[in-house]
Structures are given as C-alpha cells and as structure tokens.
C-alpha cells in the first residue's frame, strides 16, 4: 500500500508539471474534437502526431497521446447521442438509448450521464491499473483460443437473448452481421471469400464505414423522410442537467459498468465492445422497467458508457505490462514508445517508472479535465441540434465520408458507407435493430478465427472447450442464457417484458 502511494506520488509529480498538464489538456481537447467528428478516429490522429511527439520527452508524448485516446472515447459518445453516429464500436451501444433520449429532448442529461459515468469509470480504472496491472495481465494470458471462443459465444447469445423486440429478428441480424463479417481473405488459407474478385475487399469491410452507415446514414435517411416531425421532436429540450431522480438511477449502472469494463478491457481483441454490450445487457436484465430500454432509458447510457471508458483505460495494461497491444490504438501507442526509444514490455514498469506512473496519474487528471471541459459544452452541443437539418445533414455526411476514407485510404469504404446506409434504412423500416448486426459483424469473424485456432492446436478435438475450466464456465453460462430464453415459463415472461414494437 505504501508502495502504491509512493508510486502514485511519483506519477503525480510527473503528471503535474506545467508542461505535462498543458499537453495532457491539448491531448484531451484534440481527442474530444476528433471524437465528435464521426469517423475520424484516434488511430489516424495519433499516427499523424507521432513525428511531432518525437521532440517531446517520452512521458509528455505518452501523456498527450493517451489523452487523445480517452478524449476520443468521450467525444465519440457525444455524436452517438446527438446524431446516432457511433465512431467507435463501443459507442454504438450508447447510441441505442442515448439517441432516443436526445429525440425526447433529453440530450443534456444523456450527455451529462455519459460524462459523469466516464469520469467515475476513468478514476476507478486508473486505480485498477495502479494496483492490479501485473495480476490482470497474467489473467489475460490465461485466455487462449478456446476461452476467447467461449467468451464470444456467450456474448452473441446474450445479444440475441436480450435484444429489443423479436428473438427471430435479433438472431437474423446477428447472423447477417456475421456473414458480412466473413468478407475478405481467410486468415488460415489466404483464400478470398465473398470478394467477387475485388482486391479492395480482401481485408474485409471497414468497421467504421459499416457502423456509421448502418446507424448514422440510415438515421439521416429516416429523418429526411419527415422533416417537420424531426424538428418538432428536437426543439423541446427539457433541462440540460440530470435531475435528482436521474442521478439516483445511474449510480448503480455506473458502478456495474465500471467493474465489467475494467475486467473485459484487459482482454486483447473485442474487450471493450463486449464490455459495453455486457453492461447494457446486465442493466436491461436487472432493471425493474426493462420496457424503457431502447426507448431512452438513462441506465442504458450510464452502464455502457462507464464500461467503455473503464475498458479503454484498462486496455493499456497489456501494452504497459506485456508489450502486446490490445487494439489498433494501442498498436500506434506502441509505435510511439518505440520512436521514443522505449521498448514496450514487462520492463517498462521497472526501467521507466516515471513514464509508467506518470501516464497513469495523467489519466486521472485528463479525465477530470474532460468533465470540466464537457459539462459546460453540453449546452453548446444541444444547441447544435437546433441547427436546421438541411444544413446539418450534408455536414454530417461529409464528415462521415472523410472519416471512413481516412482510415485505410480505400474508396470501397465509401461504397460500404452508402450501401450500409441504405441497408440500415431498410432494416429500421422492417423493425430490425442494427446493434445485434454490428455485434455479429465484429464478433463473428473473431469467433470463427478463435474456433479454428483452438481446433488447430487441439488437432480437431472439440473437447478443449469443455476440459479447460475457464472455457467450460463460459460455455455453461451461455447454455444457461439459452435455457432462460427457450424454457416456456421464462419465455412467456420475456415476451411480456419485451413486447415487439409494431
């Protein structure tokens, strides 16, 4: 404990120098801005800034780049709530109820909830990293291919079981997403699947293009259908800050989301999106008023937002303690460290303690700055909604297109944006939800990959999923969820609870 205080003290002494505070602020400010622009992601921004950061000290560089990353998580939820435009996989969950709240004139409380939830989660996750980084890294290593497969199986089954509306439609959406996820070169054989000979498709469809299309562009199409109705809905904004009742409702979801996010964020791969979905599922499951979910339940914003921010922060653990990046942003951060002459890995914590603890301490400072920065901005963001739609929507489409293209400079991402915008519109008209589609799209290919990898290692022996304790537990949990859905008694109750919209 004394050690911890000493270490955090060292971290604070690094993070609280005027220079580092300034660059931490610049980082979170820039992060918020790029987060707000749909599609423009932290990966491209951090990569562009790499050459500049070479001139800084390693700690300053990392503090600023980390600030961009978690600042973008904040900003990303802003557009998800205001415009149904998730830029990151995890904020697609926030869009479900956040956007509904905005349409009901409660954009202010939704944004404030996201900010407060993220701040709390960020603070807790900072301590989690400080105290548990090495043991958590060891726990992440216990996850081999069979465990990942079982975890994702559980995730997909939960998505179907607790989707809003009909199970058949949710299942259909997951499978459709899964099939679109299969497009591209097969990792194991190098063979191209469903690419129709188009080379640009051999790396698969770009997540940002698909997500922005199916959520955001589809929403624009739907709004344009009836412009008068939209303006009427948005102009009656009621209150910018959450009420006392709102605050009471979000306390527990924030706590639970933080816990889930801290734990799942450590896992390389789909950690943070699973965390956001899991948090949403849990909140809906234990809520006394599950029928509000999908209609603008504030818990549906608080839980996933906290989970997503906690996960964003704990995803630093594998990089800082093992030297393996958990997601593309961490891969760019790894590049930044190497440019500084610091080799990411187990040695960082002992060889560069000022860097390690300085970055961790700066995360807390950065999160505090984000709250201070974002709470006053809520009024401004909400006023954005009163801009006439014929001015707003071309701007949104332009940013979405620039953002999607900038990721890989691939013109097919623009086609995907248009195609999935149209598809998303059709799906909305058919009463099918895009969220299970997106989860299937992200997790499906990963699930296939882990399944095949597990079977290659076991030489085709399927029992690996049951003989490894962690994997067996996850499979058992998935079976329980399936039972709950299909046992008649429960199913009846479920129908009553999730009545299909017509």
């Amino acid at each position, binding site marked *: 404990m004394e050690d911890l205080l000493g270490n955090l003290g060292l971290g604070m002494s690094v993070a609280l120098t005027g220079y580092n505070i300034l660059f931490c602020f610049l980082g979170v400010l820039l992060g918020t801005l790029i987060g707000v622009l749909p599609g423009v992601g932290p990966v491209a921004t951090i990569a562009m800034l790499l050459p500049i950061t070479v001139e800084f000290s390693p700690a300053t560089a990392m503090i600023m780049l980390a600030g961009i990353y978690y600042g973008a998580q904040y900003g990303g939820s802003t557009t998800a709530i205001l415009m149904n435009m998730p830029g990151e996989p995890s904020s697609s969950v926030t869009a479900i109820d956040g956007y509904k709240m905005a349409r009901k004139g409660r954009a202010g409380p939704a944004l404030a909830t996201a900010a407060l939830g993220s701040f709390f989660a960020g603070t807790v996750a900072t301590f989690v990293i400080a105290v548990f980084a090495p043991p958590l890294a060891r726990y992440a290593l216990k996850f081999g291919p069979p465990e990942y497969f079982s975890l994702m199986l559980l995730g997909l089954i939960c998505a179907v079981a607790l989707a809003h509306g009909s199970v058949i439609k949710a299942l259909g959406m997951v499978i459709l997403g899964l099939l679109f996820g299969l497009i591209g070169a097969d990792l194991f054989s*190098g063979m191209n699947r469903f690419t129709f000979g188009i*080379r640009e498709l*051999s790396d698969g469809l770009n997540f940002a293009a698909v997500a922005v299309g199916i959520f955001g562009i589809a929403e624009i199409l739907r709004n344009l259908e009836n412009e008068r109705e939209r303006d009427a809905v948005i102009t009656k904004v009621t209150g910018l800050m959450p009420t006392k009742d709102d605050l009471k409702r979000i306390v527990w979801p924030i706590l639970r989301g933080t816990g889930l996010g801290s734990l799942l964020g450590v896992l390389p791969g789909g950690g943070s999106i699973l965390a956001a979905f899991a948090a949403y599922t849990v909140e809906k499951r234990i809520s006394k008023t599950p029928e509000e979910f999908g209609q603008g339940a504030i818990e549906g914003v608080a839980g996933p937002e906290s989970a997503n921010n906690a996960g964003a922060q704990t995803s630093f653990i594998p990089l800082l303690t093992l030297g393996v990046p958990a997601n593309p942003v961490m*891969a760019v951060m790894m*590049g930044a460290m190497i440019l500084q002459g610091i*080799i990411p890995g*187990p040695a960082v914590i002992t060889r560069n303690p000022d860097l390690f603890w300085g970055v961790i301490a700066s995360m807390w400072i950065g999160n505090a700055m984000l709250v201070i920065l974002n709470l006053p901005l809520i009024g401004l963001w909400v006023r954005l909604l009163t801009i006439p739609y014929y001015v707003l929507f071309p701007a949104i489409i332009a940013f979405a297109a620039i953002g999607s293209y900038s990721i890989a*400079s691939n013109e097919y991402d623009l086609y995907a944006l248009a195609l999935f915008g149209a598809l998303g519109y059709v799906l909305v008209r058919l009463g099918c939800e895009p969220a299970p589609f997106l989860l299937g799209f992200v997790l499906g290919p990963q699930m296939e990959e882990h399944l095949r*990898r597990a079977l290659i290692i076991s*030489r085709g022996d399927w029992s690996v999923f049951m003989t490894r304790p962690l994997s067996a537990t996850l499979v058992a949990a998935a079976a329980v969820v399936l039972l709950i859905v299909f046992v008649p008694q429960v199913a009846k109750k479920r129908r009553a609870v999730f009545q299909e919209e017509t």
Partner: protein
Amino acid sequence: MKRSLVAAVIAGVSLVASTAYAQQFPARAITLIVPFAAGGPTDTVARVLGEAMGRDLGQQVVIENVVGAGGTTGAARVANAAKDGYTLLLWHIGMATSDTLYRRLPYQTLTSFAPIGLVTEVPMTIIGRPRLPAADLNGLVDYVKKNAATVTMANAGVGSASHLCGMLFMSQIQQAVTTVPYPGTGPAMTDILGDQVDFMCDQTTTTTPQIQTGSVKAFLVTSADRLDQIPNVRTAKEQGMNFELGIWHGVWAPSGTPPAVVERLTRALQFALAERPVAQRFAALATAPSTKEEATPAALDAKVKSEIARWKPLIQAAGVYAD
C-alpha cells in the same frame, strides 16, 4: 549528320529540362505510402525515415497508410501514381515474395517501379513459449521432431515475415510443423507468452523486449552476428545451422520517374540514413540503417531480383498462395 544533330539537341534540351525539374524538385510535400496499418514496425520505420528525408528535401514527407492484400494494395497505388516522384512506396521483402504468393498482381514487380534504395534489414529471431522444454536451437529441433504430431508454430498470416521465416525453418529442418495463423504479430505474441502455442519466428522489432526480460525463450537470431540489444541470443551459424534471413525494407517510386528526381530522392535517403537520430531510433527497433552503397537503386533492384529467385521455389513447394 543533321538527324544526329537534332537528336543531340533534343537530348540536350530534355536533359536540361530534366535537371531544371530536378532542381525545382520537390516543390511540394511528398507522400510516402506505407502498405500496412499505422503503428506497425514498417510504419515506424517509415515515420522515422520520412521525417529525416523531409529535412534534406526541404519539404514535408507525409505518411499515408494504404492498407490491404498483404501490402499489394499500397504498391498498386504507387505503381499507378503520377511519375513525378511525389508518391513513393516504403515496403519490405513482401515486394519480392508477393510476386510468387499472388498469382494475379495489379502491377509488374520488376517493371512498374523505379527503385530508390534499401533502407534497413531487420533480423529475425526464433522464440518459444516460456515453458517450452528446449534450451537451444538443437533442443528445439529435437523437440519439434519428437513431437511433430502436437507441436505448433505461430505466424502473422500468409505472406507475413513470420510466415516466410517459418517456411524457411521447416525446409531447413526437413520437418513440416502445424502452423497457427494470427491477424498480426501482437496476438501471436500474446499466445506465446500465455503458453498457448509453442514457437514463432519474428522480427526483432517485436521480440526484443520479450527476450530482454526473459518472458520468452530465444533460440536464434538470423543475422550474421549477434545483436547488441540481445547479446545472449546466438546466431544460427554458431549453433551449426545455415539460416540467414532479414526483413529488408526499400523505397520505390513509380517507373518512369525522371532519373534526376530518382537521383535526388536517393540522395535524400542516404542523407536520412546517415543521421544519428535515425540510427538511434532504428537501434531501438534492434536494426541498423543500410549503408550508402545499399541505399542505391542498383542495390535495391538486385535485392528484389535475387529474393524473388530465393523465395519462388520455397513458396511453390509449400503450395501456399495469398489469392
């Protein structure tokens, strides 16, 4: 007589024009296309190099990541770009191996590009999971042969450096091993650290930190001499095996780029590689800048040709194609 005079005048004028063009070159920012995602080892090399080349050229070198199809999408972009030296490609050994790995390429490996020069050659290392019961290269080979039915070798997908090195290793020890592909070196390293797969061959860029802290077992380094960063890892030759391999990187312009521009770019490349900060940052990646003789169009051209010849039979024997 008259005709040759005209020819001489035309040649003279075009030479002057070309030189004049080269004197103006570069008049604006240069785009250096990296055919892989930001943050990877190749991207890092490009950013270090681009910054230094830009200082010599007096213009910014902008890195653009054109990702896809094992690097061939980015290469195709450069092959079709304007032949003015403002669009360059930084790629590695994949330029030579994709010539065989891909049966249909949207460009001609040998004729679509004007080589500028070699940049660096990153050594490879063979590493194993922490609990792998083998102490050195011969122990590893014994273990692999004895447990051929269960042993697994990780790689980062068809055509990756780790895949190429694995192929070479298998042909060297005359033993096929079950390979486990990953989408990149990062996840493969995670499974090595967690004892999920047995061993892998990868660039020092990613393995050095793990070797330095003893989180993985290291069996050999593929360079001719031991590396300063990991002095305890022995070379293949020291352990009685002929196994040399490096992931060389080069810079190309589209073919048809004026010779004077190519010459100017080669000078900028040589300037950058001689810079101390560049050498220091390459050292952090456990590699070194290419020499002035290697950083020339002729050296890169020869490298591509010899490497195509080296890998063609190996890839064809393995029967692995990327399309």
